């Protein structure tokens, strides 16, 4: 069963900015899924549409098989969302924020108060239950929004950059907490621009940049592809098909003089040239193929380094 299915989703804002250019995305039930991308990529827009805070321009969204257009109330009841920006009344006491959210979901006050106690304790906010939300630290405010999003026991939890601006120690404990919710059966989607976070937490990942999904794969495959580099080789010989190379990744024939070879970390360029040589192929020149994904990762990684 799919927890989320997005097809051909477009969003153009009123000012003409195209934030989503027809994205497709599927997330399996029970998954821990990362939506990774640099600032301005369209992550929050995508999440805004799913949680019905942003009007889509076109496309389809289904949550556990229920259509956002036709079964909005049902979809809302299955979703829990932790937005990127704080969106609670800072003058309200912490416990009221969580209990009231239960009320909006139609949960009787008695039950809502019990659950509030449970989640505030889980998230270390119980001692602060009676203070106004504005008195909480940034990390506590983030956890308050997590508690609030859990009050109706959603089956799909979406967190938009939940650990942005949260110090590293606290970040780890939030990861543990999210891990636990996921193990208890809640599907989790989180957006992030920390590679480390996606790597550590998530089984599957989509990478979004400038409103398009440029990669959607398992974390394992992604890491493997990141640890290899693609080279473009210009051959002296004329070829009619890509040569068979053992141990190397994808090998492509670009034209009769040119091939592209994915070189894994375990093998050297020497190995490559030797293998080609045994097939009578002579390399004239060679260059490193620049790849959008790799470039993106370099920017993401340098950003993450700057931040930490």
């Amino acid at each position, binding site marked *: 069963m799919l927890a989320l299915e997005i097809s051909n989703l477009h969003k153009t804002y009123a000012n003409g900015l195209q934030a989503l250019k027809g994205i497709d995305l599927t997330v399996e039930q029970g998954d821990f899924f990362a939506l990774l991308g640099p600032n301005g990529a369209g992550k929050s827009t995508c999440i805004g549409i799913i949680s019905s805070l942003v009007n889509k321009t076109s496309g389809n969204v289904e949550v556990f098989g229920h259509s956002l257009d036709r079964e909005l*109330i049902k979809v*809302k009841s299955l979703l829990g969302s932790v937005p990127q920006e704080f969106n609670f009344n800072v003058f309200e006491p912490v416990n009221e924020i969580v209990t*009231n959210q239960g*009320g909006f979901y*139609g949960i009787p006050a008695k039950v809502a108060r019990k659950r509030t106690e449970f989640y505030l304790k889980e998230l270390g906010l119980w001692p602060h239950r009676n203070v106004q939300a504005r008195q909480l630290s940034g990390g506590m405010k983030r956890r308050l929004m997590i508690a609030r999003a859990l009050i109706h026991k959603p089956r799909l939890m979406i967190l938009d950059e939940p650990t942005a601006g949260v110090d590293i120690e606290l970040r780890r404990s939030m990861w543990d907490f999210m891990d636990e919710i996921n193990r208890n059966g809640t599907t989790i989607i989180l957006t992030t621009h920390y590679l480390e976070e996606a790597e550590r937490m998530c089984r599957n990942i989509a990478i979004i940049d400038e409103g398009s999904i440029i990669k959607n794969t398992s974390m394992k495959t992604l890491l493997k592809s990141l640890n290899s580099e693609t080279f473009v080789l210009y051959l002296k010989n004329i070829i009619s098909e890509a040569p068979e190379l053992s141990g190397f990744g994808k090998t492509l024939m670009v034209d009769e003089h040119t091939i592209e070879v994915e070189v894994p970390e375990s093998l050297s360029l020497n190995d490559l040239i030797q293998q080609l040589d045994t097939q009578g192929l002579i390399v004239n020149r060679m260059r490193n193929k620049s790849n959008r994904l790799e470039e993106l990762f370099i920017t993401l990684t340098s950003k993450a380094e700057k931040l930490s």
Partner: protein
Amino acid sequence: MSAGNYWIAFQTIVRKEILRFSRIWMQTLIPPVVMVALYFIIFGNLIGQRIGEMDGMNYIDFIMPGLVMMSIITNSYANVVSSFYSAKHSYYIEEMLIAPIPNIVILLGYVTGGVVRGLCVGIAVTIVSLIFTDFYIDNPFTVLIVAFLTAFLFSLAGLINAVYANSYDHIAIIPTFVLTPLTYLGGIFYSIKLLPEFWQQASLINPVLYMVNSFRFGFRGVSDIDLSLAIGVILFFILVLFSICMILLHRGTGIKH
């Protein structure tokens, strides 16, 4: 989600709204009472004694229903416009927008908050009026119905204002330039029979006139306007504004991108 769940959601919104204005009672409940007390002292007692009778009653008895009505109008409006605008401005409106409740529950929740504040202030002002004049209600049922409908109508209007407002200035413009003139020219302080023929006719397009007069009819049994016409006018405006609110919420105007 069932009707029971929606009922809980509705109660939650209303409780939140009532808590909001009662927590800041110094800003929400006291000022209108003080203001109306001043009106009673100045216009009712001091000037009123020189004016003598209006429509066959003491001047203070003539203006009392209109002053109560004015408090109901400004306070129900103010409650919804500032509460809804703050929720939108600080994004906590999203707490309701993501929740599995139909827009009509949100609308009725906010409007009920406005109605409660309007009626609370109305009652407080009525109590204050007892200091200056005797309590007398000709037809309590009419008073209640007109008070409720008027509060309902201006709560809806407040919500529309909040949807379009982009700053705290915008929530003051309509009350200052539209609401206040309409109420002052709505026959609170005078009977329109005193006006020249043309201005009598012009006054009839002012909806507040119908509210003030039907309210006065409820209190005193005297009115410039036929009661059923007045109620009809109020209901008509409620219908129009209610539909506008539903369309705005459905489109997400001012609250969704």
